[in-house]
């Protein structure tokens, strides 16, 4: 790829703004609350946009376009089933306890509601997870810069070996993110996330517009795609009649309930954005405001994937293929999506049925190269980089807060001055990013270790929502119940994964590592959803049973933490259209409508 000066200027202007915001906000950071919670002074719409932007990391833009190309419009289930309902629930029902309890983090809420061990389990696993996710973002970004040959020309000009591109990308992205978080803390991260949100929209909207115009609008697109890929629900009654390989129950319960509620309602990375809001009402509106752009995101990120696969297979033009392209390799690709090449043999990678494996992750990059001229290309790439950085920064701010408040202040050094914790927060930002870099390099060496870690995180996360649901809505739930429930959920997830397999997989990291196969799922997705369902159910049941046998806490200690013991909020002062219930109903109605349109 050859970038012209205008492309570089656009990127530099963006970076200047990102760091500039950090410098401007630095003066405002005087206490640890300013640094970790943005002084609880951010308006609802800003928190709302940061709420989705923090989640808009690498996996979102690249990954959703890739699954759009692979599975078609059914990918929208990850939004309309797998995000919106949970976002409405956290805003209306859970935020009063997160924000109202004045907890400074999600693990801290667990300590207030349950006990120290439940908090510790959540805080430590969460801290490790954020560092690794941020490292994976960093790794993916450096790999993309390598694959797209963005830095090849400037490196050649400066006579630096292209072997350095990966290292320079890692260090450079780490320094930028470090710079703006170190200076301005969470406010700086939130401000930049909002900036990134608008930039991502500005970078991808013209792509969708040009692409749709090119293929002849939605109707033209439909004609060029296989029938199954333009419907989201048709064929969902049976896993074998839809491209996802999941039946509706597994989808709705596994993705729509367990995984989605587990992420959007309990993950501190997103909840932290709402906790920074300037009032209870603003905190409750945060996820609801976020839900509106979120439900429209499929059009921005999934459509490019659909367009990429619908276009005629490209001749020699400027698409990126993994390496030198022979005619055979090019013909094996589909639309703008090239076939994967086995890095050991240098030949086409084939699946079990002898068909070439496609590199769907290149859908978005190739779309950018296909449609964008110099100038707009710079903007598109900047948007892509912005999405990586917002994903990274979200993890780093969540990490430094949980580390400082829930680990350092709780177990290592309680009772220090506020200034000391502010200092520790800045220090945690540095070593959090340092650890992410270590994780990014670990990913280059030991691909399996990363896969395994992600699997372990999936086990740890799956049962979480059962704990929060019982904790917030059943006053009888005890700390022992919550803790043992969580452990049992994780174990259930691991066992379920250990005795099942998906149709095309071999035993090992993909399942069945306990030696026996009790059930074979039609797809890996179905296996993951059902692992989550088992984990959640086990946690739910064990928490209830153990709670019934252990002594509950005094009711007066639980005021503000449990639904039945907390006074209903008086919304009298807020105008009707700002009320969470109204907004929530509107969001749900719109989501149902979108599902019907793309049925």
């Amino acid at each position, binding site marked *: 790829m050859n970038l012209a000066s205008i492309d570089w200027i656009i990127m530099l202007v963006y970076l200047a703004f990102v760091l500039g*915001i950090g410098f401007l*906000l630095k003066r405002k950071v005087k206490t640890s609350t300013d640094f970790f919670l943005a002084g609880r002074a951010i308006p609802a719409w800003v928190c709302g946009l940061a709420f989705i932007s923090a989640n808009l990391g690498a996996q979102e833009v690249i990954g959703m376009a890739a699954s759009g190309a692979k599975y078609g419009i059914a990918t929208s289930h990850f939004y309309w089933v797998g995000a919106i309902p949970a976002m409405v629930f956290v805003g209306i029902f859970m935020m009063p306890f997160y924000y109202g309890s004045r907890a400074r983090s999600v693990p801290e809420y667990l300590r207030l509601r349950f006990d120290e061990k439940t908090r510790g389990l959540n805080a430590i696993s969460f801290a490790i997870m954020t560092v690794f996710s941020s490292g994976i973002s960093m790794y993916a970004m450096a790999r993309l810069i390598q694959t797209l040959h963005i830095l090849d020309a400037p490196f050649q000009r400066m006579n630096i070996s292209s072997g350095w591109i990966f290292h320079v990308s890692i260090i450079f992205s780490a320094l930028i993110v470090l710079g703006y978080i170190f200076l301005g803390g969470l406010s700086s991260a939130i401000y930049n996330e909002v900036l990134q949100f*608008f930039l991502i929209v*500005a970078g991808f909207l*013209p792509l969708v517009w040009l692409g749709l115009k*090119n293929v002849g609008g939605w109707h033209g697109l439909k004609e060029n795609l296989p029938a199954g890929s333009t419907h989201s629900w048709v064929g969902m009654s049976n896993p074998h009649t839809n491209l996802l390989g999941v039946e509706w129950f597994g989808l709705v319960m596994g993705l729509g309930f367990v995984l989605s509620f587990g992420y959007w309602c309990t993950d501190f990375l997103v909840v932290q954005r709402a906790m920074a809001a300037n009032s209870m009402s603003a905190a409750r509106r945060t996820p609801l405001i976020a839900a509106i752009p979120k439900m429209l995101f499929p059009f921005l990120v999934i459509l490019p994937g659909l367009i990429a696969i619908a276009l005629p297979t490209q001749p020699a033009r400027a698409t990126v293929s993994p390496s030198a392209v022979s005619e055979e390799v090019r013909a094996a690709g589909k639309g703008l999506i090239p076939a994967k090449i086995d890095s050991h043999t240098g030949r086409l990678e084939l699946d079990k049925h002898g068909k070439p494996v496609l590199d769907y992750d290149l859908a978005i990059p190739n779309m950018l190269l296909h449609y*964008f001229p*110099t*100038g707009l290309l710079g*903007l598109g790439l900047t948007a892509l980089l912005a999405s990586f950085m917002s994903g990274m920064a979200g993890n780093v701010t969540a990490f430094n807060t949980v580390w400082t408040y829930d680990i350092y202040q709780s177990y290592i050094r309680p009772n220090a001055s506020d200034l000391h914790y502010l200092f520790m927060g800045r220090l945690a930002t540095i070593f959090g990013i340092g650890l992410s870099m270590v994780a990014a390099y670990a990913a280059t060496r030991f691909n399996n270790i990363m896969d395994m870690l992600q699997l372990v995180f999936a086990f740890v996360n799956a049962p979480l929502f059962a704990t929060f649901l019982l904790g917030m809505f059943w006053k009888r739930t005890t700390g022992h119940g919550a803790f043992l429930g969580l452990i049992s959920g994780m174990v259930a997830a691991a066992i379920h994964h250990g005795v099942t397999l998906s149709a095309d997989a071999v035993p090992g990291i993909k399942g069945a590592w306990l030696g026996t196969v009790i059930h074979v799922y039609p797809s890996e997705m179905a296996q993951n959803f059902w692992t989550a369902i088992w984990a959640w159910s086990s946690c739910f049941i064990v928490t209830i049973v153990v709670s019934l046998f252990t002594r509950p806490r005094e009711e007066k200690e639980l005021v503000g933490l449990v639904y039945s013991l907390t006074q209903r909020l008086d919304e009298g002062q807020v105008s009707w259209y700002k009320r969470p219930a109204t907004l929530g109903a509107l969001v749900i109605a719109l989501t149902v409508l979108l599902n019907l349109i793309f049925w």
Partner: protein
Amino acid sequence: MGLDIRLPIGGLFAVLGALLAAYGLLSNPTLYQHSLGINVNLDWGLVMLAFGLIMIVLGRRGSLRKNAEIQLESADREPSQQRPH
């Protein structure tokens, strides 16, 4: 927080929009073969510029109002503080 976020957003979009639009005006039309013959740099640059300017106007109005509120508050407070003397 003191800084109205619409100002940096507006600033970034105005600068990027102006850059793209200017580049679109000056660039060779053959560049736009990729983009179906549409000068997307010019068109999208103008859209971004307009969006940026609107954000700046809204942001400035927002900060002016905020400053006025702060002044009003301090004006309210002063007489009550002076009363005991």
